[in-house]
């Protein structure tokens, strides 16, 4: 037993790694299919369903606006609270605006929005598609020669990416505003100074890298949740499992991608 256990351990690591690779491969195939069908849908028939995409945008994104506004206000306030004593030590209290806005636009706006949308949109998509698998609806689509990826995944992918990016813009502004609240009412400073410092410190690069990342996060959320939903086993437990897995895996992949892209932007841009 003891002689084999290191080997076993290695074996388990190997099989876990293989599982992860296979999973990422599956996601990759779905991504390729989706991109292909999206491109086809833009240029040739059958066209992308505009009304369905619009409906999904409302369903997946618009309903998340209140919660994102609330969460991001808190995030901006927390940043200002946490950083003002440190900045005060250095006599740099006027830099609260800089630190909050750069942190929110570059990192926290995209990230927190993506995490909230994972719970909102990702869980909803996984549960919905999983239920459709259970009810044989996906089989019914396939056998009536309607491609489930074209019919179900493509509108959701477009809607989810568009909404993640749009909501990130909202989140960026609201988060910076949250920091401004603390600056004005707790630190008792001039709001116009805060406003001008924000405009002065933000670079186009800060805004753009944040939005590019948020688009990628949106793609991860919708891809993982579609993959999990369509792969759900035909039972009520299967739908629950798919939903949980899609949330957990999306958050993991979002943060991993965040790390990778942030590093890339750091070195390249």
């Amino acid at each position, binding site marked *: 037993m003891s002689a084999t256990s290191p080997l076993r351990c290695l074996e388990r690591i190997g099989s876990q790694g293989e599982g992860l690779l296979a999973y990422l491969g599956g996601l990759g195939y779905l991504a390729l299919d989706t991109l292909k069908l999206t491109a086809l849908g833009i240029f040739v028939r*059958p066209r992308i369903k505009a009304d369905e995409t619009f409906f999904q945008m409302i369903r997946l994104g618009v309903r998340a606006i209140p919660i994102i506004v609330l969460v991001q206000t808190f995030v901006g306030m927390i940043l200002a609270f946490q950083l003002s004593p440190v900045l005060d030590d250095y006599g740099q209290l006027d830099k609260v605006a800089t630190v909050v806005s750069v942190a929110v636009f570059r990192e926290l706006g995209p990230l927190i929005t993506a995490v909230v949308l994972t719970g909102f949109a990702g869980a909803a998509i996984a549960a*919905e598609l999983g*239920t*459709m698998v259970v*009810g*044989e*609806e996906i*089989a*019914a*689509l*396939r*056998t*009536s*020669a*309607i*491609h489930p990826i074209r*019919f179900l995944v493509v509108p959701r992918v477009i809607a989810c990416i568009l909404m993640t990016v749009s909501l990130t813009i909202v989140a960026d502004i609201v988060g910076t505003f949250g920091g401004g609240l603390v600056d004005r009412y707790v630190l008792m400073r001039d709001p116009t100074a805060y406003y001008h410092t924000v405009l002065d410190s933000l670079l186009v690069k800060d805004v753009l890298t944040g939005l590019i990342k948020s688009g990628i996060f949106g793609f991860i959320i919708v891809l993982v949740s579609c993959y999990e939903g369509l792969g759900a086993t035909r039972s009520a437990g299967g739908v629950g499992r798919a939903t949980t897995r899609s949330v957990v895996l999306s958050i993991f992949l979002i943060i991993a991608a965040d790390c990778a892209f942030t590093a890339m932007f750091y070195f390249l841009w």
Partner: protein
Amino acid sequence: MPTTSEPVLELRNVQKFFGERQVLKDIELRVAPGETLVIIGVSGCGKSTLLRTIIGEEKPDSGHVFLDGEDACCAGPKDLDRIRRRFGILFQSGALYSSMTVGENVALPLREHSDLDEKIIKMVVKMKLEMVGLRDFEDLMPAQISDGMRKRVGLARAIALDPEILFYDEPTAGLDPIATGAIDQLVIDLRTKLGVTSIVVTHDMESAFRTADRIAMLYNGEFIAVGPPGDFQNPTDPRVRQFVKGLADGPIPLRLSKTDYLADLMGTTADAP
């Protein structure tokens, strides 16, 4: 019945395994145009797997499925879609799209596969729903109607594109006798009026006798009897007789477990003798 003409559906040596278990053993089947073939058998005998293999939802491990002379197993996605456009399927649960109304469900195949005007589509939807007696239910959601009605809507959707072949998975299971009779009548009408070929999977003997041109009984993954309904009125094969008459005692065991009951209860694992 014209059995000499080219078959619409042909299965050659179809085998299917789930792990170690062989679910379909060397299935051979030919269905002539306009024929109604009813496949009967006990639960778990491979009926649903057979149907899923024919419609391309499962790939056979060996053998071929020909639909109108085209090999559906080796067809690429495009060809498979073209073949699939010519057949309709009624799923056991109806498999309605739960996010669409009854009318939208029936309209979907038309919207996706035809260039028909929206006005014409609306008309066709009404006609198909009228055929299953549910014309006034167009605007309801699938969750708001009963199981039996969902199944009838599923049938309306299956015939939306006027298919040449129709597959029914347990069309009458869970329906009241009147609805059962209505579905049976619809199967017969589609055959006589439109010449639709039907493959019905069921364990409802009464409806099998009513609708079938030919009955095939599947047992343990193979056909043990194939013939006109008359052959099944007083069958000689004891297994067929047990099924048709619905007898609890006979060669077909009710208990499917292969391990010894007593040994299993006592926790000592021993295989059945």
